């Protein structure tokens, strides 16, 4: 019987067997509505609703008029859609000090975020590059202090920085806040860039040195062009981080240059006047809009950013 099998199968392209064989054949039968799938997708769906509901409630509340809010429940869609709360939140809502709405805070945040992002990334990328490719004696010691420093609660360093900024004459100014953001962004960004530049093949760096390129030449002509993705990741990290900051904004700036988060909190939690929930929600949404847009546009890069930052940090 073994012989028969051998001869039969020395032919590689053996055709279909004539022997009819009953019993199961083909793929294992799988029902779309198996118990496993119902539980799996059911759970995911319920959790997704829990995560999405607050966003939904914010949106519908911000589109309702106050009388409708007082009557109905928070989950019901608006009967009459009005954009008035948005206009009011943007242009005329009061913070207790002034009544020109969130627009002021928005522009303050823009003026804080852009230079902070540029400065912090510029410093950290060059620094990470130096740490990865031009190691000098003691560099690792300072880097270790920097990374350990990332775990120190900000509260511990809050007041010494007030003194430093005051000595420099920039306490309470945008410049001061930009500097603070650059300082506190440094650990995570330096780590990010250092790890990235370390992963670049060393031969490339050596070849450039043999070709006569120096520190800045290699940085600008070789490293920078090939590391655009990591710059985007750093940018996402910084834009959301700085835009969402509250503590530094409230400590190191003065009311007329408060960032959007601080102003938002002042508007919503101000004790004066009647609470206008629709305006509050519109204002909250407006403040959350910038990081949300960044998040939804960047998608996988955002995940990569937090993974790169968090896992190694």
């Amino acid at each position, binding site marked *: 019987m073994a012989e028969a099998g051998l001869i039969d199968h020395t032919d*590689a392209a*053996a*055709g279909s067997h004539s022997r009819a*064989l009953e019993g*199961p*054949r*083909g*793929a294992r*039968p799988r029902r779309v509505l198996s118990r496993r799938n119902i539980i799996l997708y059911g759970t995911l769906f319920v959790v997704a609703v829990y995560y999405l509901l607050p966003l939904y409630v914010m949106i519908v509340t911000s589109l309702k008029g106050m009388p409708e809010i007082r009557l109905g429940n928070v989950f019901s869609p608006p009967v009459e859609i009005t954009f008035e709360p948005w206009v009011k939140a943007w242009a005329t809502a009061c913070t207790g000090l002034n009544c020109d709405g969130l627009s002021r805070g928005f522009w303050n945040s823009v003026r804080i975020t852009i230079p902070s992002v540029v400065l912090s990334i510029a410093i950290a990328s060059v620094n990470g590059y130096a740490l990865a490719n031009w190691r000098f004696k003691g560099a690792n010691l300072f880097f270790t202090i920097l990374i350990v420093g990332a775990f120190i609660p900000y509260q511990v360093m809050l007041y010494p920085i007030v003194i430093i900024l005051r000595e420099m004459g920039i306490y309470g100014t945008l410049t001061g806040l930009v500097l603070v953001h650059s300082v506190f962004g440094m650990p995570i960004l330096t780590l990010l860039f250092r790890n990235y530049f370390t992963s670049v093949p060393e031969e490339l760096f050596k070849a450039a040195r043999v070709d006569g390129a120096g520190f800045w030449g290699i940085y600008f002509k070789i490293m920078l062009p090939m590391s655009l993705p990591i710059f985007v990741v750093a940018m996402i990290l910084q834009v959301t981080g700085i835009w969402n900051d509250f503590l530094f904004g409230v400590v190191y700036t003065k009311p007329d240059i408060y960032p959007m988060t601080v102003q938002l909190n002042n508007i919503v939690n101000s004790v004066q006047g009647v609470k206008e929930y629709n305006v509050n929600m519109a204002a909250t949404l407006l403040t959350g809009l910038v990081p949300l847009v960044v998040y939804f546009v960047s998608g996988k890069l955002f995940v990569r950013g937090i993974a790169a930052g968090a896992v190694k940090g």
Partner: protein
Amino acid sequence: MASVSVRNLDLSFGDVKVLQNLNLDIEKGEFLVLLGSSGCGKSTLLNCIAGLLDITDGQIFISEHNVTWEQPKDRGIGMVFQSYALYPQMTVEGNLAFGLKNARVPRDEIKKRIARAAQLLHIEPLLKRKPAQLSGGQRQRVAIGRALVRDVDVFLFDEPLSNLDAKLRAELRVEIKRLHHELENTTMIYVTHDQIEAMTLADRIAIMRAGAIQQLADPATIYNKPYNKYVAGFIGSPSINFIDGTLEAASDPVFKAGETKVDLSRYAFSGNGPKPGPVTFGIRPEHIFMDKAAVDEPFRANVEVDVVEPMGADTLVWSKLNGHELRFRVDGQTPLKKGDRVKVGFDPARASIFDAETEMRL
């Protein structure tokens, strides 16, 4: 009676067909090697047999049972992986026992089986250690042990030696062969890309390419009578010489390539005999002899030495036979240099001739 049978197996991922109408019968106690370069579908086929991949169409029988829809654990198989896949938190003993405990095998029985596996694989002193404390070779022994204690009829090996260095690989190869002798009734299916492993271990080799079996035969047949040009080129190191030319069969069949003429009257043509037309002539480097050794060979010619590659025990010589490249092997002590003209010869009976168009053996 077949131990493992694969019938008309199809596997596709979406539109990509990975395996097509594949048939395979493996005898009880046989050692079958699935050999091929990466991406040929050999590991995929093994995963299908194991039940780790859902097949698209066809049937799989193990020990006469239709297991097409069975879970891997119910198929009566044990499997050994390239990355060992040992459970890192458990001791060696824990690794061997975990599956059995889950199958509610009685405690003494577990003990007995572990003792036997440990003895067979010489891992008794390692039982209390964790995988991280073992060397690569030891880990793979434990992984084999995990398949062994399952007390099954069919062993599946998925490139088990590929993560080991050359020396350990040779050692463990012998050990696997010994194990197969000791477990007489155990069928083994072994996936590898290493032709030495295949040639040394296998009762039969299935050479795969692009999801189909090219040739299924014992190692000697595969080596001496490759079914097609791909198999001939794949098996053997250094690889076979191919010379393109034509076959003339007016009276006695003759292979012609330029000025070279090889009399093929000693060649055993298959099937319908010689069919004139364009062909590829293949002769293995180790079947070509030089100088005195070549005197008695039916075919003789003069060649010019081009490159000499000494490898210790023997030397590989790259030469030109009327413009065609010809590699052959000589003893390591032979003094040769570029430009030498030497006499070589071979027996056309040991050659392989393939149809230039279908690439099938003639």
